[in-house]
């Protein structure tokens, strides 16, 4: 039992390392994950920066400080989607076929890809933290807050990656996973990633109030702009776990379906 677990752990580590190496070797695939959220952050900060003067806008050091969490979550969503695309490409090229016939757990193959996504999520978090520090954002919860932000962004990338992996396993086509790109923005716009829910227009404001993505964003935002609140952090953790479980269940179902079809 322990031996089998250790073997699967080695598979996860090896596939995770492969996933990271793959990203490093093809920076043109990873660049949009950073460039797009960074460009949008810069433009929205300059374009809507005066929003902090609106009555009812939360007390924040700057609009950039408020927006950082949104950019990180956007990056983690894109990282999850990109992990799904990479898994689908592996399937299209026949790489996963070789893994399916190997004496390893099928779920280990998916976890390996998600391990790479976690690393990518952590890198995205660090990128935006450095960017924030360079442009004068003071992290209110200090080093502990920074570490917590990295953990939460990496965990949410894994959670979103689970959904991306499930769609990749179900469809087996990279173009299908890539087609989720517009959907990512729908989910983002219906959350508090870019603006407080109280200042958004209806019906988006009501949806944002209950969108699990909003809880994750607020959990990441809190240590940047304020002090830790246990309730908010518990909501963020529960949302990450909920989204993650949803992705795992979908992936497991897709794997079972694929095994039944002999894929």
């Amino acid at each position: 039992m322990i031996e089998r677990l250790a073997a699967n752990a080695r598979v996860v580590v090896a596939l995770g390392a492969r996933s990271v190496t793959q990203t490093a070797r093809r920076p043109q695939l990873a660049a949009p994950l950073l460039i797009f959220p960074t460009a949008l952050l810069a433009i929205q900060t300059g374009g809507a920066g005066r929003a902090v003067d609106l009555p009812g806008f939360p007390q924040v050091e700057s609009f950039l400080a408020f927006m950082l969490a949104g950019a990180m979550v956007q990056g983690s969503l894109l990282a999850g989607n990109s992990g799904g695309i990479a898994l689908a490409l592996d399937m299209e090229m026949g790489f996963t076929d070789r893994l399916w016939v190997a004496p390893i757990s099928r779920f280990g193959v998916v976890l390996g890809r998600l391990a790479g996504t976690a690393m990518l999520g952590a890198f995205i978090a660090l990128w935006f933290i450095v960017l924030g520090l360079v442009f004068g954002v003071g992290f209110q919860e200090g080093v502990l807050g920074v570490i917590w932000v990295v953990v939460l962004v990496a965990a949410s990338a894994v959670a979103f990656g689970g959904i991306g992996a499930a769609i990749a396993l179900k469809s087996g086509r990279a173009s299908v996973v890539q087609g989720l790109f517009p959907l990512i923005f729908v989910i983002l716009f219906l959350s508090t990633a870019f603006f407080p829910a109280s200042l958004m227009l209806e019906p988006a404001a009501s949806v944002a109030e209950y969108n699990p993505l909003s809880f994750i964003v607020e959990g990441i935002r809190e240590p940047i702009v304020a002090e830790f609140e246990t309730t908010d952090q518990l909501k963020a953790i529960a949302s990450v776990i909920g989204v993650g479980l949803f992705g795992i269940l979908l992936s497991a179902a897709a794997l079972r379906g694929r095994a039944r079809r002999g894929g």
Partner: protein
Amino acid sequence: MRRHLLLPPSVRADLETVRALVRRAMNEITRVPGAAIPGVLAPTIFFLGLTSVFGNLTLLPGFDSESYQSFLVPVSLMQGAAFTGAATGVNLARDIEQGWFDRLLSSPAPRPVLLAGLVLSASLRALIPAAFLLIVAFAIGAHWPGLLGLLIALAVVMGMAVVAATWGTSLALRFRSQSAAPLMQVGMLLLVLMTTAYAPLELLTGWLQEVARINPVTQVVETARQGFVGPVTWADTWPGLVALAGLAILFTFAALRGMRRMTY
């Protein structure tokens, strides 16, 4: 028929080539509609999302429109045009990869005629996301810009698609690979967003205000926007048209240079 007889045979042949290339581009929409759907939906998704999120920016003192939908419509129209134009570059890169473009180059058709076919098809295709967006925008309360305002906005959409198509084409001819697609799309998107996209110039902050001031696309956006937020005037029209013409000439030169350098 009589009009055709008045044209020299070489010009007639060129027009036929342009027509054939435009028809081919249109066939792609009818034969592979799934490929066109993201390009049609994306500007509308951004429009709906951004109005929901930033709609209350109109409450800021100095915001010159009471309706954020009306303020944002032209930006989303430009986005749609930019995506469509960039898609022309991506399609050309695919044709180069698959060797189809080599066959075009070896034909007796002059290279500017080939470029004209690509660019004209982009400007026509850009009307599809624009029409979809306008229907949604009017349905959720964007102001009717008047017939003249609407025609100016649509002309600007077609012009912006020409700019984006020549940009995409010049990149496709340089990199000769679909992997340059993000550069084509993101380059144009940034050009459109680094304008008065989110708020009037006076309300922009920091670097964006400076960039928007000198970005020629700001004039283009303002020209398309005028009918949606106020009266249509010549003073608000000509700067955008000049900016569009300047950008189109610049990128057309780049694309033609790339075509001349292309060997088969």
